[in-house]
């Protein structure tokens, strides 16, 4: 009995050995920091170390939620994500449908390639492009477009009210190609006989789109929607830190949980606040992922994460 047990494991030994380096990396890079969320419940004292620092219960969280910041960063994170989801979805579907309507194979290829190009660029590059357009002294918009229309130059980096539009546009410019390719992939999968039948019945183009194309896209839309809702408590650090140039005046409309955690930790050295905000994000984010995945599972088991 024992011998067969050893034999069984022996043949798998090499497989376990293969996994060791990678699993070790996950353990260190991902699991040890998970245990580190206890920092949020402590008053960290570097001389004593993390484990021996005194517990303070929910003190750090009380501080965090009694500040105005907690509300601002939560609101910004969630609202921006809602904006991103809606805009990228509508624009992405519209472009995908248009690309599929194009008859010329060559043009189709060109459009598909170009649409993904911004996705490959870093946030730093995006911030350079936005700066070239919006810089108050020599940006293209102030110097060429607004002055051409005889409108006074706008101090873009000083005016929080414009940033929701700027960031939603910039995010769409950068990311729309990603969703677009997914929609195109599922558009290609639609049975062409539906369209032939519709055409025989004299359906207009608009009827084809609203009665065949969109309903066929619904499963993809719902999956992508729920997956992005699962990420609604997270945001792209670069987009909110780098693109607004870390400008303090803009914080009311550009500060999100990720940038708050970073600034509190690195720029202010305020570990208790930043760890409390980090744990707040991890826990709420976790609950949201689980719930949205349960919904996906109900809807379509194959699309669920687990």
């Amino acid at each position, binding site marked *: 009995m024992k011998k067969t047990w050893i034999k069984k494991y022996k043949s798998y030994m090499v497989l376990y050995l293969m996994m060791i380096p990678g699993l070790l990396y996950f353990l260190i890079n991902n699991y040890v920091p998970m245990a580190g969320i206890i920092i949020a419940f402590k008053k960290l004292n570097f001389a004593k170390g993390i484990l021996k620092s005194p517990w303070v219960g929910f003190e750090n969280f009380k501080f965090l939620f009694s500040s105005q910041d907690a509300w601002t960063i939560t609101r910004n994170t969630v609202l921006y994500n809602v904006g991103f989801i809606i805009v990228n979805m509508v624009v992405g579907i519209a472009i995908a449908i248009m690309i599929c309507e*194009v008859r010329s194979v060559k043009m189709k290829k060109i459009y598909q390639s170009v649409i993904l190009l911004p996705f490959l660029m870093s946030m730093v590059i995006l911030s350079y492009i936005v700066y070239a357009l919006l810089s108050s002294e020599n940006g293209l918009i102030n110097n060429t477009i607004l002055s051409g229309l005889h409108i006074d130059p706008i101090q873009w980096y000083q005016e929080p009210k414009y940033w929701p539009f700027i960031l939603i546009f910039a995010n769409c410019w950068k990311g729309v190609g990603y969703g677009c390719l997914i929609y195109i992939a599922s558009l290609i999968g639609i049975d062409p006989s539906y369209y032939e039948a519709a055409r025989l019945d004299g359906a207009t183009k608009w009827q084809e789109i609203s009665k065949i194309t969109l309903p066929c896209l619904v499963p993809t839309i719902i999956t992508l929607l729920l997956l992005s809702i699962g990420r609604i408590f997270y945001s792209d650090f670069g987009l909110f830190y780098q693109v607004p140039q870390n400008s303090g005046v803009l914080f009311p409309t550009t500060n999100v949980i990720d940038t708050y955690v970073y600034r509190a930790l690195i720029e202010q050295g305020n570990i208790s606040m930043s760890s409390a905000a980090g744990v707040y994000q991890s826990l709420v984010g976790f609950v949201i992922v689980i719930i949205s995945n349960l919904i996906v599972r109900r809807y379509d088991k194959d699309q669920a994460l687990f």
Partner: protein
Amino acid sequence: MLNSKKQIHYQIGINLIMIMLTLIIVLPFILVFISSVTDENVLIRNGYSFFPEKVSLYAYQYIIRQGEKILRAYMITIIVTVIGTSVNIALSALIAYPLSVRTLPHRRAITFFVFFTMLFNGGLVPTYLMYTSFFHIKNTIWALIVPNFLLSANNVLMIRSYFMTSIPEALFEAAKIDGAGHLKIFCKIVLPLGKPILITMGLFSGLTYWNDWTNGLYYLSGNDGQKLYGIQNLLNQMITDIQYLASGKVTGNIGAEVAKLPTTSVRMAIAFIAMLPLFIIYPFLQKYFSEGITLGAVKG
């Protein structure tokens, strides 16, 4: 094709809209390039423009002649990308294959161990404290390679499901009958046949390393750190310095501070050479990028 004239008009309309959208996407890149070859004085006087009054190659000459800092940053980005991507793909494949073996004991538990990292994370604070005060990677090249990007659960699971679904089961059976062990199967069957997915996931990993500036931001600081700046961090630092000067927080000789900064055209030239490799490889590898995205659609 009864109303072919209407069809033609429709095609023209659609193509016109798509060409406009294409321009919206491409023009910003062209603006970066044109600004990099615009005469600096014209740039300051007229601002960024698609039609500069005077063209100058000064920025590129500057980079070639005295851009040691820039060339070093470029080299660092290349080294970090190559090492990071190779390790990422090697580690991913090494986990993915065992997890694709259906009979492996505890397979589900190990898969969950990998997968759970996608659902929950400790956040920046514990990660930062661990890497800086325990592993002391601050201001070392490891800071750019190791944290966060060396291995991702998403890559592992996508590679695993490719191994499971796209390599015919019969091949494994045949190899086993011939007496091949797991190691041999991995090297002779799984790796060669899994090449498409390994290239695809490697591309995304490479893209992440090439574009990353967050690790540099978190873990590099001061003069020692700046020596390790990759191209993205260098760009980031330049624009931060300019914002800082513009904010009026600097006292003393502003003229001297400004003189130390690279000019606008040089900055745009650096941004352009940071994008250049992506423009060059993209047409050849576009297929893999698109496939990676549509594959990842489900488990993005």
